[in-house]
Structures are given as structure tokens and as C-alpha cells.
């Protein structure tokens, strides 16, 4: 259990820093989480984060890393659908870190 402060408001997270409620998310939430990790969000980061939001809206699923890589390759282009590109953006693990910034639950398929 935890909270993060975004624009003066407290938002609940679980023990791993994932939002308790997907609907609490906005761009500011992602930026705040990233800042805590000393990570500056570039347009390339936002592309993945927004991709995950859309993916979740479509499938109600937080994709595991292999799945995320494959899905991004299919939808955003081969040059982005590889783990090197995604790990450079999200060094703590593309699925876990990006899903967290996107306000999604922990990825399904984390074993």
C-alpha cells in the first residue's frame, strides 16, 4: 500500500507502486512516477505509455514483456518492437515499468 502526490492530490497505489485504480491515471501521474525513478519522459516513452493505455482499453490486459514487444512491433513498427529499444527506454523492465507509468496493473504472465 502506498500513495503518490500528484498536483496536491493523493493517489493510492499498491505495494509495488502500481495504481490501485486504472481510472486515476493522467499524464501527470506518469510524469510523477518517472521523476521518482529519476527518469525523464521523452516522446518515445510517451508513445509506449499511450500505446499501453490503448492496449488496456482494447483488451483489458497488462501485457507481459514478450507480448508487449510483439504487439509494439506489430502496431508501431519493427524498429520499436524489440527488447533492446524498449529496455533502453524502460531499464527496470519494459512491461513492469511502462505498465506502472501507464497506470495499469502488474503485467499478466509475470511468473
Amino acid at each position, binding site marked *: 500500500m502506498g500513495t503518490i502526490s500528484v498536483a496536491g492530490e493523493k493517489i493510492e497505489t499498491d505495494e509495488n507502486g502500481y495504481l490501485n485504480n486504472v481510472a486515476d491515471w493522467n499524464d501527470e501521474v506518469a510524469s510523477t512516477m518517472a521523476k521518482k525513478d529519476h527518469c525523464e519522459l521523452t516522446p518515445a516513452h510517451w508513445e509506449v505509455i499511450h500505446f499501453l493505455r490503448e492496449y488496456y482499453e*482494447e*483488451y483489458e490486459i497488462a501485457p507481459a514483456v514478450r507480448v508487449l514487444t510483439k504487439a509494439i512491433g506489430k502496431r508501431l513498427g519493427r524498429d520499436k518492437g524489440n527488447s533492446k529499444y524498449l529496455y533502453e527506454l524502460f531499464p527496470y523492465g519494459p512491461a513492469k515499468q511502462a505498465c506502472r507509468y501507464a497506470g495499469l496493473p502488474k503485467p*499478466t504472465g509475470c511468473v
Partner: protein
Amino acid sequence: MATKKKIMIVNRKAPHGTIYAFESLEMALITAAFDQDVTLAFLDDGVYQLVKNQDTRPIETKNFTRAYRALPDYEIEKIYVERESLNARGLTPADLAVAVEVLDADTLAQRIMQQDVVFSA
């Protein structure tokens, strides 16, 4: 783990009335992460799991059935639906939310026999 096994997950139960369909789907997604040769089979009331336009908002449950459409991203490509079960329920492949292979009961029986492991719920 180098061993690759043929693992089939058999779905014979309708969604929503019980949790089996939802948790079987979770099982399928995890199994796929282990690089196994995964097959999903839908027969009897299990074919209802794949029906499109399911909207669970009125019953306030998570709409896990949307995730069936993400199965190709999990590299689960063998999704079999039994023809006799579809027919008995007045359904056709056009009523389903995902691309499936429709097999008759005899062919499905052969595919079951070829498995190393069969999970059911």
C-alpha cells in the same frame, strides 16, 4: 527448461456464471510464457466464451473476454472450436470475437489424443 510439451487447455464452461473461463484464460497466458506448444479448445458451453460483443459493465465484473483477442500476441495460434458445439448453440464463426479453426468432433478428438498434457476446468 528445454522441454517443449504439447499442452491443451480445454474449455467446456460458459463465461461469467462461474470463474472457470476467466481463470483458465489466465492459465493459458502463463503457459504460453513458458514457450510450450499451447492449444486452446472450446467445446460444449465453452464456445460461449468467445462470443463477440460481451459487455460486462451491467454486471460490474471485469471483462476478461476481451483478452481472447490478444491471444495472437501471446503466440497462442491454435484456437480450436468444435463445429457440433457451435451448431447446437445456433452460432457460427461470424458470431465469435476471435479468428478460430473450426473442427468437427472427430478431428478435435484426434488433436486431444496428440497432447502430452490436457488441462480442463
